[in-house]
C-alpha cells in the first residue's frame, strides 16, 4: 500500500517572459503515493484557486507519456528522478515524507519561459518544418511481412521514432544542445528507404535551423541520453554527424 506523504513543493513562479521569477514554497499535506506528479499539481492548483490565488501554469496533455507535452525539471532531473518516464508518469511514491521537491521550468536560451513552468518549445517545430518529413510519394502501405527491411534496421528506426520531442535533452544538456532530438528525427528517416531520397537535404536544413535557433553544441556528455524519457541513444547523434559529413562532402 502506498502511504500518504507530506512535503514542501518549491515551485518557480514567473508571471511573464520579461518579468523576473522567483521560487515559492507550498506545503503539501497528505498526498497519496499513487497520485501522479501532475495530479499533485492539480490538487495544489485547486487549493490556490479556492484561496483566490493564481494557479501554477504548466504544460500537459495526454498524461500517458506519448504526447511530449509535459516538461518540468524536478529535483535536478528533466521529467523527475524516474528513468524512461515522462513527468506525467512520475508518481509521488518516489518521494519521501518531509522532502523538499524543487520544480523548475526547462532552462535554455532557445526555450524561453512563457509563464511559471511553461516554456516556448516552438523552436522544435521550426526544426521539424525545416526537413523532418518525407515529401515524395512512397506509395501505399505494404504488408508488414513484405517490407524488404532488415529487422535490426526497422527496430533502430522505430527506436529513433520513439522521440516525443519534449525537449528533455535540451534541458539536461549543460550546453543547451538539441542534438539528440535532431539526430532522432534525422535517423528515423535516414535508416529507411523512404527517407533516403531526401536524406542529404534534410540533414543540412535541420542542422542549419538548429544552429540558427541558438541551441548549443554537442560535447558528448551523454546527459541527454541518460535523462531522455524515451531512452533515445546517442548512437543517433553519431549517425547525424555521419549523415551531415556525407551530405557536406557530397556538395
Amino acid at each position, binding site marked *: 500500500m502506498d502511504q500518504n506523504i507530506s512535503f514542501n513543493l518549491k515551485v518557480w513562479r514567473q508571471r511573464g517572459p520579461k518579468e523576473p521569477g522567483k521560487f515559492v514554497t507550498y506545503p503539501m499535506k497528505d498526498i497519496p503515493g499513487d497520485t501522479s506528479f501532475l495530479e499533485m499539481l492539480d490538487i495544489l492548483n485547486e487549493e490556490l484557486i479556492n484561496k483566490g490565488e493564481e494557479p501554477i501554469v504548466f504544460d500537459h496533455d495526454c498524461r500517458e507519456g506519448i504526447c511530449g507535452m509535459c516538461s518540468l525539471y524536478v529535483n535536478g*532531473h528533466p521529467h523527475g528522478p524516474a528513468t524512461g518516464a515522462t513527468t506525467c508518469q512520475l508518481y509521488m511514491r518516489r518521494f519521501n515524507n518531509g522532502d523538499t521537491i524543487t520544480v*523548475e521550468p526547462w532552462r535554455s*536560451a532557445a526555450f524561453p519561459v512563457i509563464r511559471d513552468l511553461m516554456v516556448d518549445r516552438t523552436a522544435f517545430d521550426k526544426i521539424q518544418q525545416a526537413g523532418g518529413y518525407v515529401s515524395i510519394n512512397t506509395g501505399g502501405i505494404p504488408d508488414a511481412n513484405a517490407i524488404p527491411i532488415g529487422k535490426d534496421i526497422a527496430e533502430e528506426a522505430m527506436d529513433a521514432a520513439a522521440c516525443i520531442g519534449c525537449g528533455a535533452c535540451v534541458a539536461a544538456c549543460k550546453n*543547451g544542445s538539441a542534438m539528440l532530438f535532431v539526430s532522432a528525427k534525422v535517423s528515423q528517416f535516414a535508416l529507411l528507404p523512404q527517407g533516403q531520397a531526401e536524406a542529404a537535404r534534410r540533414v543540412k536544413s535541420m542542422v542549419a535551423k538548429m544552429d540558427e535557433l541558438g*541551441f548549443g*553544441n554537442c560535447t558528448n*556528455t551523454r546527459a541527454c541520453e541518460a*535523462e531522455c524519457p524515451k531512452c533515445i541513444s*546517442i548512437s543517433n547523434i*553519431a549517425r547525424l554527424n555521419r549523415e551531415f559529413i556525407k551530405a557536406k562532402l557530397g556538395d
Partner: protein
Amino acid sequence: MSVSGAALVLFLLFHMSMNLVALFSGDAYNLICEFLGANWYALVATAGLAALVVLHFVYAFILTMQNRKARGEQRYAYTKQPKEVEWASQNMFVLGVIVLLGMGLHLYNFWANMQLVEVLHMLGANVDVSLATDGTHYIKETFSCIVYVILYLVWLVALWFHLTHGFWSAMQTLGWNNQVWFARWRCIGNIVSSIIVLGFAIVVLVYAFCPCAGGC
C-alpha cells in the same frame, strides 16, 4: 575539435615514444634532440603543431562561449548529474586550460632552452648553444626539483582525464560510432590515454628518483 584533437593524440604518442628512449640511453635521446633541432623539417612540423594547438584551443573557447549563451541567463537552482555522465566530459574546458598551462611550463623548461636557442643562434644572436641539443641534461635538471615533478604529474593527470573523454568523443563527432562501437571506442580511448600518460610519467619518475637514469 575532433580532427585537431585526434591529430594531437597522434603527436602525444610520438612524443611519448621518443621520451621512452631517455630511459635507456641519454646519448640516444640527445641524438633525437639533435635530429629534431633547428632544421627546416622540424621547424615546419613545430609550426604545424603550434597551429593545431591554437586551432584546438580557440575553437574550444568559441564553442564554450556559444554553449554558455545557449544555456540561457537563468540557471537551474538544483541540478543532479546522472551516473552515466563522466566527470571529465563536463569539465573538458577546465581540463584543457590545465593542460595548456602545463604546456606553457613545459615549453619554458625545454623548448625555450633547446630549439629556440638554436633558432636564435642561427639568426645571429649571441647565445650559448653548447647545451641546446642536450635534452638529457635538461630532463635531469628539471626533475631534480620536486616541485616540477609534482607539477608535471598534476599536468599528466589532467591530460589523462581530458583524453579519456576526448578520444571516444572525437570518434562520435566524426560519426564513426554506433551502439556496438561505443563501448569499444571508450575502451580503446582508455587504453591509449593510459599508455600516453604512463609513458610520460615513468620518465618523470625515473629521472626524479633513480640516480642512474639515462646511463651513469
